[in-house]
């Protein structure tokens, strides 16, 4: 069953889950069972939501102006990311607060399940973001014949985390999907993402490793093991 209304065939990637949990091999039976239980629960939960909108932008070397709004995104890194774009999509997605409630419950009752549930939920929000990204990709192509950049979130590089508040405001996401940011710019519900995607010409596509933008790329356990986190755990 899909966990967003109207979205079919949205699956939680078990390999991703295992990677978050540190596995390199096939899991034991107990973990496998926990994983199946958690995936089912998350897929049956109906509180996930997302919003996105497309904006015209003006890019300078250290700032992005989102036209027809008061919002400016500061930082040379976001400018670099969007250097070939004159439009961008701003997106926000959340699994919703009931996933947090379940996680809270498992933290109290079964910490092993809590670990697995946490990893499954992380994989799920990644899945939701991939889905939205594809929607945006299609939009960019159909409307403008353009391609898109990878997702770029507040906290990557020198794009301040405080940008989260602007993005939530632009999308009216707190009313629409219940997504909020605290004074310390922590997104609540916890399994949530905000991101910017630039629209670009096909010729300007380039692979853009998010590890460079991650603040723990030096100490990352995934990276040390020759692996990566799937860019879902980029730390700001």
């Amino acid at each position, binding site marked *: 069953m899909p966990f967003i209304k109207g979205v079919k065939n949205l699956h939680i990637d078990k390999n991703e889950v295992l990677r978050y949990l540190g596995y390199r091999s096939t899991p034991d039976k107990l973990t496998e069972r926990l994983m199946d239980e958690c995936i089912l629960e998350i897929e049956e939960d109906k509180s996930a939501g997302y919003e996105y909108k497309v904006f015209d932008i003006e890019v300078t070397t250290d700032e992005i102006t989102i036209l027809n709004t008061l919002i400016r995104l500061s930082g040379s890194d976001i400018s670099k990311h969007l250097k070939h774009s004159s439009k961008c999509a701003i997106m926000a997605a959340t699994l919703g607060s009931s996933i947090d409630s379940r996680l809270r419950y498992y933290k109290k009752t079964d910490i092993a399940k809590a670990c697995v549930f946490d990893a499954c939920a992380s994989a799920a929000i990644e899945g939701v973001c991939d889905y939205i990204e594809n929607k945006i990709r299609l939009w960019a192509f159909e409307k403008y014949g353009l391609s898109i950049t990878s997702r770029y979130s507040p906290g990557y590089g020198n794009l301040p985390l405080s940008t989260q508040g602007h993005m939530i405001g632009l999308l009216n996401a707190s009313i629409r*999907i219940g997504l909020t940011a605290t004074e310390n710019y922590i997104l609540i519900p916890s399994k949530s993402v905000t991101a910017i995607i630039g629209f670009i010409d096909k010729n300007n596509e380039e692979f853009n490793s998010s590890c460079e933008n991650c603040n723990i790329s030096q100490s990352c356990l995934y990276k040390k093991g020759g692996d990566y986190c799937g860019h879902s755990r980029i*730390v700001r």
Partner: protein
Amino acid sequence: MGILELLGKNILIFDGAMGTMLQQRGIIAGEIPEIYNITHPEMIEDIHKMYIEAGADIITTNTFGANELKFRDTIYTVEEIIKSAVKIARKAAKDKYVALDIGPIGQLMKPHGVLGFHDAYEIFKNQIVAGAQAGADIILIETMSDLHEVKAAVLAAKENCTLPVFCTMTFQQHGRTLMGTDPITMVLVLQGLGVDALGLNCSLGPKESLAIVDEILKYSNIPVMVQPNAGLPKYDGTNTIYDINSKEYFQVMKQLVEMGVSIIGGCCGTNPEYIKQLSVGLSKHQVKQIERKHISGICSSTKTVLIDIEPVVIGERINPTGKKRFKEAVRNGDIDFIINEAIQQKKSGAHILDVNVGLPEINEKDFMINVIEELQSVIDLPLQIDSSDADVLEAATRIYNGKPIINSVNGSKKAMEELFPIVKKYGASIIGLTMDERGIPQTAFERVEIACKIIETAKTYGIEKEDIIIDCLVLTASAQQTEVMETIKAVHAIKNQLGVKTVLGVSNVSYGLPNRELLNRTYLTMALYAGLSAAIINPGDRDMMDTMKAYKVLSNIDEKAKGYIEAFHGAVHLKDTNVKKADYDLKQVIIDGLKEEAILSTKELLKSEKPMDIVNFYIVPALDLVGQKYEAKELFLPQLMQSAETVKQAFEIIKNFIADSGEATINRGEIIVATVKGDIHDIGKNIAKTLLENYGFKVIDLGKDVPIEEVVDKAKHHHIKLIGLSALMTTTVINMHETIKAIRKAGLTCTVMVGGAVLTQEYADMIGADYYVADANESVKVALKAFEE
């Protein structure tokens, strides 16, 4: 004429969207619309006037987001924005009414987020005081998703002004709000809190609202208000467009009025044209009379339990009376133990949980509040707040999210005077004990008399019959055998003659006699047959729960025995099937992560071994081995945690044994763990805590988002040697630094270990931590070292 005189008699027309109108006039994203009250007053006034001209009876001030948090970074105060907004609306409204608009704060409340109930109350209070002083006629609390936030707002309104309060929540298509509240729960809680009108706004279009409004009307005894969007939002790449025009809108709104809605207006996407249609077509429409319903319902924020034909189970286990292990947990502030009791009762089928934490040596009020908050953060069952202290009852009822039962009042004048105002103010249900100044009367007749007195007195406070549950008091058959039947007779009479619900704490009856189970379940059957509505029992008692199931079949409540068959079909009926042989080795059981087996083998070991020896020679070696395998990547986090959970089970058995036998408790040393101020990601901390406890350390878990002072105070108070701090974000690591600074400044000599995704050894050194721990396993090593000497 005052608005209250029109309410429920005339159709009242509210205005439509403010935001949509401002956008048309050029406001752009990122601007704060409420600032227009000061920079563009004429524009706001113009919009208000258009709605008045369209026929609105009530206009809404441009103050939806005018709260302290949203205005923190502006040059304006909330007071000046609100005063200006009310002044503009007042001027445009003339003889029509002005509603002070109050939207959600925009931050999630605890336990989801970090905003506390009291903080939310204060934010709303400032808005309401400013609005009322400036001359608003109505407080409109709207577009809410969180029932707890609504409660804070309603209390702030009721306690700080005398204006009528209207309140609407916003629902998703699946019929609940984003935070999971359903229509019946909203109605019972808000009606209880004494709002003047309630209903739905925003999110959905009128068509999608129909089913939800129908539910609301089914339960509401007060006027219902609906302000939908102009259809569902569609995004065209530049704008959000709502897909229903004013004619279609009118058609559905007419249907809603015919169903019984008496206050109507618009939300996102609507404009004066929509309101004009409503005003022209519906303002003279007759209001459908509200039929008075008598619903006995108890609510958490997401679940309502109806006390009706089907008897309800109230779990009695959260109560220290006669339980050594529970008393120890209360004294130690061990909330996890209490939560576990709650979860076990829920799993056994309890519908409501009684919560009593009264012990003379603790601060009952603070602890009760803490327990209620923690319980509500993990469990969705409604609660029954149980204390002999009215102060404790009021404090707990105030912060409770939903509609609780208060346990209890009796028929004495003093008790009723003390408790009924609380019951009324917070819209709770109350258990009334059939005793008074003279004690418990012997006969059923006298108990019915006291019940009458309670019901009549409650009425004078405005408390309705459906919110009263009478406890006819069970006496023990061993001491007062002649009176045992009087209780049953009283239940029958009170149920049938007085028409109120009844409750009994059934298992008192068997006290002091052998084979108590037999007496308990027989007595339960008798009481159920007499008409008992709710039984306060131990849901873990299979006999009692099965008796309930059987009764429901035989009394035709469980139709076609569906529930019964589901419960018993294929069940093996062998008594004492639990006597399995415990031939497992505890060490292996832990390594394999087998929780059930851990219970059996620990019990077995306790017959011959001392508790501390079990820890040292079985548990620790097994954990060490699992830890090594984890480090060698032979097994992984979930397996490590399975083993940890298994040890937890073993420890629970050992702790029970110690509580009963009086042996020395296991305590290698006390450690504080906390996720620092501002941070809510605490899973890493919880993992470390579990493992530390496994090794026999006593862990004082301060939770998440822990204020710096609290860490320092607790460390001082408990003479702590080791503190573990966690933080996940770069923005909150700063608070970790501050916490360590404060610990050092206070002159505490404790060792500090830190962990969390963003931390590194270098960073840990920089912020002055003694140890950086990359995972929970390492935290154990640090702890063992710290307490070595």
